[in-house]
């Protein structure tokens, strides 16, 4: 990985690189026979250093989410970033990634961002807007910012506060403050809970999707190997989360009851707190006592402060602090300070300017505030955001927000580690970053790079930070804090009716990613729904309401009503979960416009996500775009699972699901370089980062809700969810199985799909005539067909991976084990006159997987992670009885439930 000083001269050449690429895209359309002089070759005017045409150069950078930094490495080709992966050197990702991280590369080229800056409804430039900011008259300025941990931004805001009356509103649609309030109640200050899950024998998730954090998922997965050191995960939540699918002890409860369970648990462990005894809590307490000092209790941000406080207290009671848990000062800049949107709504008319950066409060804030009117009342209002969204339309001025890969940023990870985000491409549109906006207010002409650079003592530190992607030793020191807390009696869930729990969408977050087609079309990890949300409820609830899947339901809370289709899901009885971020009315963001229902309308003024309300069936149904509708095994042994005790007692548990079947066909060659894949269902959370990574790497198109509903989604890699009869849930990623005796191959009439000597099942797009016989004959149904011309010709095409053919209409496509990476490595090895090293080829899905559930390698490998999995007794083949001899094989899921007594 190298640094990128980004001298102006490079910028010029980087633009040329884009030109070069445009020519390349045009060439994609070219026919089968090329004629001399068809294309142009556009060389550089001056050769940029560190650049070789067609070579992938990896730079470190940074993505910011919820105020925290996530270190990434970015593959750039000819000056074009085309792929994002987690930075192994950064504590927040540890090399893993999440769906939104993978999908951010799409935003970089998103034509929807290109609507341009505007003032008073007419086009403007950022420089013009910046001039207005510099010339603001004295008086109060209101700044709405998401929570942040950027030292640079903090420094600038301090300077600004010294210059003029400044009101900063920290706007987080899904309030993160409860966590800090709870901590503050216990310790007197808002300390952050840091986790070292590799040391946790017991992990308790109270309404918390702990494993959504890639670094935590990686650490926790390391403790899931069946055996004596296998950790135990307890989860209680209103709706199953990816963490819940891995939980050994899982309990579905009303979101409002989690507090009661936490109280019962604390009481079991000796805290004098009003509570009602709870069986599950008692068993959990028993387990925790057996693992004193080796457990961690994590609470979801949605839960009220008291639950966080109880959890902190339990950590101390069990001596977990200093073990898996440590306490530090928060990385976020004073998380509890700042004013609220309500204050803003009241004060807006008296402000000289209201500036909203990287937020969409008009959409996310409680409707009662009517922020749109407030913003209109302000003499000057500016929105700096990714899209021309609801807030942009309510503001006087709008400027597109710079993407992290277009500007200089810095941010801290949750553990305090500082990292710098460097731009990798000159902005394609006229954009501004948060730093630019504040700098303009300060009338500071220094550019973002200079401002971020200032925070560093010398060049050495600066370049190291850029090279490694994280400032070593900058994490926050552990603070010794004792809990001095006497729990006040807290309000048990009140009110009749049904519980409505609002949740962050695992795909589009709080709505900020609603414009990202990859995330909109990503199947929900649990419900497999794409493009929109639904009233998620248990079968019992559905029965009570007299609805079934896709029937419309009207949800009513004191704040408002919402009509969405029902969908049966693993949800606590009596609770309806609705995910936020959908139902936006944003004509200028077609991908997000009018998709699903707007659950923010249900939130009361307090912004709580746990509400009581009513639900009733209304006339009509709405087709849900789901990619999987059958969840059972239906008599096939395709997702074996067992408790660890049973597994240790029966090592041959899945022996009958692997090995060669008798066959009349000649034996398959397995000598030399032979590629294969292993997937461990024990540690797959179903987070789906791999699916988006595959999409980014292999130029997979999105097809929209209608086509998905018609069974035409294009993801090469899907994650099958099986709810076994024993209530275990198995997430089974399903890429091409690369069968040695592939049924798809011998039915292709034109030999468009066939077997390579190194064991790959090849699909030759330019030979395919589209009979689709191969798909019919694929027992795993992993093949995808281009029913229409799905290829993208917008600026998004700039993200296309030049190493992968962009498929045209009428051809079949499927997972290739990232053959382009294999061949690239082969060629590199040939040029350097050596063999391919083990682990040299990493598939996109493997690179993205936070838990390392996917491993890729050669059959001949020894003592690599792949080889170890290949020789594991849990290895099985899906549909083994068909004798297809898949090269992609799986490890059975082993759970670690607490022996009941």
């Amino acid at each position, binding site marked *: 990985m190298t640094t990128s000083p980004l001298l102006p001269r490079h910028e010029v050449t980087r633009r040329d690189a884009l030109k070069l690429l445009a020519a390349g895209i045009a060439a994609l359309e070219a026919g089968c026979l090329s004629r001399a002089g068809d294309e142009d070759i556009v060389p550089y005017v001056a050769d940029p250093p560190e650049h070789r045409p067609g070579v992938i150069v990896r730079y470190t950078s940074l993505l910011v989410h919820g105020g925290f930094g996530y270190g990434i490495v970015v593959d750039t080709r000819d000056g074009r970033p085309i792929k994002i992966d987690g930075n192994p050197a950064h504590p927040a990702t540890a090399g893993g990634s999440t769906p939104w991280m993978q999908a951010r590369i799409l935003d970089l080229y998103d034509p929807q961002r290109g609507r341009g800056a505007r003032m008073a409804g007419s086009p403007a430039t950022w420089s013009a807007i910046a001039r207005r900011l510099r010339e603001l008259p004295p008086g109060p300025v209101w700044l709405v910012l998401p929570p942040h941990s950027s030292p640079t931004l903090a420094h600038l805001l301090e300077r600004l506060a010294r210059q003029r009356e400044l009101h900063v509103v920290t706007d987080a649609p899904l309030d993160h403050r409860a966590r800090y309030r709870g901590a503050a109640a216990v310790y007197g200050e808002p300390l952050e809970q840091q986790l070292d899950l590799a040391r946790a024998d017991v992990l308790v998730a109270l309404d918390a999707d702990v494993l959504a954090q890639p670094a935590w998922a990686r650490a926790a997965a390391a403790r899931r190997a069946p055996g004596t050191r296998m950790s135990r995960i307890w989860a209680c939540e209103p709706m199953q989360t990816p963490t819940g699918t891995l939980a050994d002890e899982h309990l579905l409860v009303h979101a409002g009851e989690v507090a009661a369970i936490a109280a019962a648990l604390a009481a079991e462990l000796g805290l004098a707190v009003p509570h009602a005894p709870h069986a599950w809590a008692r068993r959990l307490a028993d387990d925790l006592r057996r693992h004193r000092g080796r457990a961690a209790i994590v609470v979801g941000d949605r839960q009220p402060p008291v639950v966080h406080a109880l959890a902190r207290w339990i950590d101390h009671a069990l001596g977990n602090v200093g073990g898996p848990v440590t306490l530090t000062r928060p990385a976020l800049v004073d998380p509890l300070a700042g004013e609220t949107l309500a204050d803003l709504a009241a004060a807006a008319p008296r402000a000289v300017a209201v500036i909203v950066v990287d937020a969409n409060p008009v959409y996310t804030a409680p409707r009662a505030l009517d922020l749109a009117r407030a913003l209109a009342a302000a003499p000057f209002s500016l929105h700096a955001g990714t899209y021309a969204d609801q807030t942009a339309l309510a503001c006087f001025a709008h400027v597109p927000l710079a993407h992290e890969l277009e500007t200089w940023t810095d941010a801290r990870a949750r553990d305090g580690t500082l990292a710098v985000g460097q731009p990798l491409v000159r902005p394609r549109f006229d954009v501004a970053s948060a730093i630019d906006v504040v700098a303009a207010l300060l009338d500071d002409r220094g550019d973002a790079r200079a401002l971020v650079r200032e925070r560093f003592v010398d060049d050495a530190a600066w370049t190291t930070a850029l090279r490694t992607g994280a400032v070593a030793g900058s994490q926050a020191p552990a603070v010794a804090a004792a809990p001095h807390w006497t729990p006040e009696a807290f309000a048990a869930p009140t009110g009749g009716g049904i519980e409505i729990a609002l949740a962050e969408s695992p795909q589009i977050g709080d709505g900020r990613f609603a414009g990202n087609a990859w995330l909109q079309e990503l199947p929900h990890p649990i419900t497999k729904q794409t493009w929109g949300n639904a009233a998620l409820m248990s079968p019992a609830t559905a029965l009570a309401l007299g609805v079934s899947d896709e029937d419309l339901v009207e949800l009513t809370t004191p704040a408002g009503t919402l009509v969405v289709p029902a969908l049966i899901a693993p949800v606590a009885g009596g609770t309806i979960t609705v995910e936020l971020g959908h139902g936006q009315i944003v004509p200028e963001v077609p991908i997000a416009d009018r998709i699903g229902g707007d659950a923010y309308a249900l939130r009361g003024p307090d912004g709580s996500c746990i509400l009581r309300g009513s639900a009733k069936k209304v006339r009509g149904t709405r087709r849900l775009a789901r990619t999987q509708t059958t969840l059972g095994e239906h008599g096939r042994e395709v997702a074996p699972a067992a408790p660890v005790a049973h597994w240790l007692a029966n090592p041959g548990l899945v022996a009958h699901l692997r090995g060669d079947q008798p066959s009349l066909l000649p034996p398959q060659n397995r000598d030399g370089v032979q590629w294969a894949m292993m997937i461990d269902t024990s540690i797959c959370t179903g987070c789906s980062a791999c699916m988006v990574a595959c999409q980014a790497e292999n130029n997979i198109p999105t097809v929209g809700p209608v086509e998905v509903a018609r069974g035409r989604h294009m993801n090469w890699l899907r994650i099958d969810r099986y709810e076994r009869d024993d209530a275990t849930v198995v997430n089974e990623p399903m890429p091409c199985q690369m069968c040695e005796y592939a049924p798809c191959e011998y039915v292709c009439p034109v030999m468009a*799909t*066939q077997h390579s000597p190194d064991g790959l099942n090849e699909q030759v797009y330019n030979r395919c005539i589209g009979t689709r016989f191969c798909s019919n004959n694929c027992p795993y149904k992993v093949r995808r067909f281009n029913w229409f011309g799905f290829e993208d010709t917008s600026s998004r095409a700039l993200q296309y991976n030049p190493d992968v053919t962009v498929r045209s209409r009428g051809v079949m496509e499927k997972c290739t084990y990232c053959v382009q990476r294999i061949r690239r490595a082969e060629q590199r090895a040939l040029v350097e006159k050596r063999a391919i090293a083990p682990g040299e080829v990493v598939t996109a899905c493997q690179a993205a997987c936070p838990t390392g559930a996917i491993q890729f390698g050669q059959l001949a490998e020894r003592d690599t992670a792949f080889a170890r999995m290949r020789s594991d007794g849990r290895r099985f083949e899906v549909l083994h009885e068909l004798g297809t001899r898949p090269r992609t094989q799986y490890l059975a899921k082993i759970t670690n439930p607490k022996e009941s007594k």
Partner: protein
Amino acid sequence: MTPEAGLAAEYADEHALVAAIRALRARGIGPMEAYSPIPSHAIDKALGEPRSPLAIAAGIGAIAGAGGAYALQWLLVAYLYPVDTGGRPPHMPLPFTIITIEMGFLFAALATFVAFLVASRLVTLWHPMFEVPGFESATRDGWWLAVGTVDTTAEDVLRATEPLHVHRFGGWS
């Protein structure tokens, strides 16, 4: 061989025609050709024509088609580009057989048809007989005889066989 010119006579029915043929052959007059609305074994016997050899053509076509098809399949997928499809061996007699059989049938049929056209001198859109007045009855209910000579003795013999009418055709008409 079919007379291109000479005498053409129409008869009332099959028996009359057959009788006439016998009479003329007895006198060694020829060549002769009979025309009838429907196939008639009696006429063939009288004219002493051999059985049709077309079955041989069909046989040859079948063997050529089948052999060619199998050879081509072997050449293409077992020799020229022996790619591994589903772990199947490059040379796979069983699946190859199907196209082999079909091609056998196809070429047998084509060969038969072509042989038929050649053997019965068809695709001759004009023929001297068409000029004979009333000959169109040959496709309705007329029984015709053509003799490839015009010498008087032959004509006398012919008239002696009580045809409905006699005409000269071809060069002498």
